[in-house]
């Protein structure tokens, strides 16, 4: 088992390295030059040259990549081109906000969707199963911004239960922040719920045709116990994988929701940086997103290995 886990970790690191090359190369081939971007179209060639020299753009790309990666590994993400301040300052607050929102949404969405999936499997083809399926499918079919605005209209404007904007700041208490992000978290929950719920249901029902499930029925166990104790442990691998993908989405794919609720997250930062051609910020965000994806999938792989007794317990 250990070699298997080590192999996954090594593969994960290799993927990250490849992604860092892609991120760097991708921003390199963007049309236009950072120097002209900073100075504008009417800059004199001398001024552009001076800027290029001060940014170290004269060096070959491979060398700059190496400096960039080495700096990243030491926690030095470089300075923003837009305002000259260290990227880490802006990123720190934003990344924490994004992770805060993602954790809040995940801590509701994951147990809820796995639980609903289990209940739907227990009542397979029953009315509960159908209703949960229809509701979750409708939620996934609607665009995120639409769900967001509907929630704002109902819960913020009409009922005035929650704030419509989630412009949180560092001096707010944990409780205040939690209250502020109620609506975006609810929106995200609705978006990721269906995928995880349906996979949980399908994975469990897939296991139900095995002979050991029939055996469990013949032992006189009730259906809910068979599903929870016999089917679920054998359906964990696909469920873990789909949960990991959705968790990654909660970190990486929330730009629209951030915009709707004016939430200071990392997605907005990246969009701003792209429009300003603030290349170092884009690179830093890109690498963080990639790291999130690779890290969560790696975790899912390892958990899936651990959940399989054939791999966990040697013969």
């Amino acid at each position: 088992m250990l070699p298997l886990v080590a192999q996954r970790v090594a593969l994960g690191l290799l993927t990250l390295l490849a992604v860092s090359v892609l991120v760097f190369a991708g921003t390199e081939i963007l049309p236009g030059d950072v120097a002209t971007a900073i100075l504008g179209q009417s800059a004199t060639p001398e001024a552009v040259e001076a800027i290029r020299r001060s940014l170290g753009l004269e060096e070959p790309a491979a060398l700059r990549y190496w400096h960039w990666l080495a700096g990243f590994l030491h926690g030095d993400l470089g300075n923003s081109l837009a305002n000259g301040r260290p990227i880490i300052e802006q990123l720190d607050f934003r990344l924490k906000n994004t992770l805060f929102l993602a954790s809040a949404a995940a801590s509701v969405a994951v147990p809820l969707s796995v639980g609903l999936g289990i209940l739907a499997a227990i009542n397979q083809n029953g009315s509960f199963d159908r209703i949960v399926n229809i509701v979750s499918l409708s939620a996934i079919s609607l665009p995120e911004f639409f769900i967001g605005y509907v929630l704002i209209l109902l819960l913020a404007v009409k009922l005035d239960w929650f704030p419509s904007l989630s412009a949180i700041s560092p001096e707010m208490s944990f409780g205040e922040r939690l209250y502020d992000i109620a609506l975006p978290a609810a929106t995200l929950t609705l978006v990721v719920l269906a995928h995880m719920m349906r996979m949980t249901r399908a994975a469990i029902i897939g296991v139900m045709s095995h002979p050991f499930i029939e055996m469990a029925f013949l032992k006189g166990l009730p259906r809910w116990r068979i599903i929870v104790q016999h089917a679920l442990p054998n359906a964990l691998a696909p469920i873990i994988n789909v949960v990991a993908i959705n968790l990654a989405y909660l970190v990486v794919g929330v730009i629209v929701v951030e915009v709707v609720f004016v939430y200071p997250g990392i997605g907005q930062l990246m969009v701003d940086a792209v429009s300003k051609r603030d290349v170092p910020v884009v690179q830093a965000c890109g690498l963080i997103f990639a790291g999130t994806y690779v890290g969560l999938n790696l975790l899912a792989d390892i958990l899936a290995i651990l959940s399989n007794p054939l791999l966990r317990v040697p013969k």
Partner: protein
Amino acid sequence: MTDEILRITDLRIAARTEEGEEKILVQGIDLTLHRGEVLGLIGESGAGKSTIGLAALAYARPGCTIIGGEIRYAGTDIRTLSRRERRRLRGRRIAYVAQSAAASFNPAKSLYRQVCEMPVRHGLMSYAEAKKAAAQLFAELDLPSPETFGERYPHQVSGGQLQRAMVAMAMSCRPDILVFDEPTTALDVTTQIEVLAAIRKLVRDHRTAGLYISHDLAVVAQVAQRIMVLRHGRMVELGEAAQILHEPREEYTRRLVSVRAAAAPPAEAAVAERGERLLELNALGAAYGRLRVLKDVTFSVRRGETVAVVGESGSGKSTLARVVCGLREPAGGSVRFRGELLPPTLSLRSRDQLRRIQMIYQMPDMALNPRQRVSEILGRPLSFYFGWPRAKVTARVEALLRMIDLPVEFAARRPGELSGGQKQRLCIARALAAEPDLVICDEVTSALDPLVAEEILKLLGRLRDETGVAYLFITHDLGTVRRIADRVAVMLQGAVVAEGPLAQVFSPPYHPYTEALLASVPEMRLDWLDDTLRRRAGRQGAEGPVIGAAAADRFALGT
């Protein structure tokens, strides 16, 4: 007898097909079972044996319904009970032992967790008490280190041990009735004996009533006092075990008995040396990683000859087949075919070399593409190897169908429209279409019912005489070997331990492993199991019984 425990009357079970039609699976079955009595249910696939066995627990597989009759357990008709009451009966009063323990144990939970589940969930014992009771049952069933055996996961114990663990699980609530559904069918013969002996001892010691389902009359006769013969969901006959075995009343039972009995006497006919050497294996080896699965295998097959390769699961016989036909690269030694060295892998062999060695598989269902028509299945080797034009291919397909006794109209059908036996005939015709010199038959009759298997063997014999093809016949069934083989190679843990003409290998003096194998094949007499166990106890004496994997280790040391 007054201690009747189960009475089934006029049981009818139906399945709903995809088109919504009702298909009757079981029709008008009556049976009674008394405390301490074992009733054997015997029949071919589709006879409704398992369906009846499950009905004794008031359980019907998804898609099936019990549509009529009474199932009285201790006087109450369990069909009239509520779902909850039925659940309290299952496992606790009536328990089930499934055919494949490997599939019927949850791979994600330890054996203790599963064996103790019933007494704990039915509220009979605490988990600690149940563990203690389970350890005791493990000891009764001769499982190794019974205290810690239950801590293992299903994949950590051998097939025979797992099957006994399943018997322990079924016994965990001390039920009144045990339903055994082919509990030894998936096991090797030497392992089958241990499990049979364990089952019989347990049932006797605890005076448990049993329904013993099997397709093998000789096996049933060792444990059952009475036997019911079933066919197409109806009863053919019911009688004392001795009467069914020795004086069957019905024609169908007689056929079942005679197929089984035909396996008994070894063919004494001296085999004339057949033609020149066709296939020569010389010190052949193969390995999966560091695990050596073939060790120094040396023997040859002559033209028109049938060489059987026998051995239990894991003996390397299927790997041998894969090496010969080029699917697996050997790790040493050589394969000579028609005097020339065969390249190790498929891609290096010429089309003519490929054509001359064909293969027939165990599962005809999986060996045939369900989307192709019979004409395409048989036509493909003809156009591939010979490049024949369409008209010639069509004519040859018809000739091939006639050769395997199938109507010419079958050319337009798909495999799904054929029976199991017809599919295997089709596989034979496909192999022979290439006009090979050698056909490798890998357990070709194992998945078939005895009567169908018998016909396939006859067909193979006839086709060999007609075409002069040679067979490398891989099987675990010694009865099949006796009927078809000229020569035999006995394999144990990747090595050939005995090789020679059938009559020589299968008569004294035996190699000890061959003898153990032969002694483990159930015979059509009631006292076979007692005799065999007694002989074993006598011979092994102080060393204790040597069976299953232990035997394999010991015999392998001598080679």
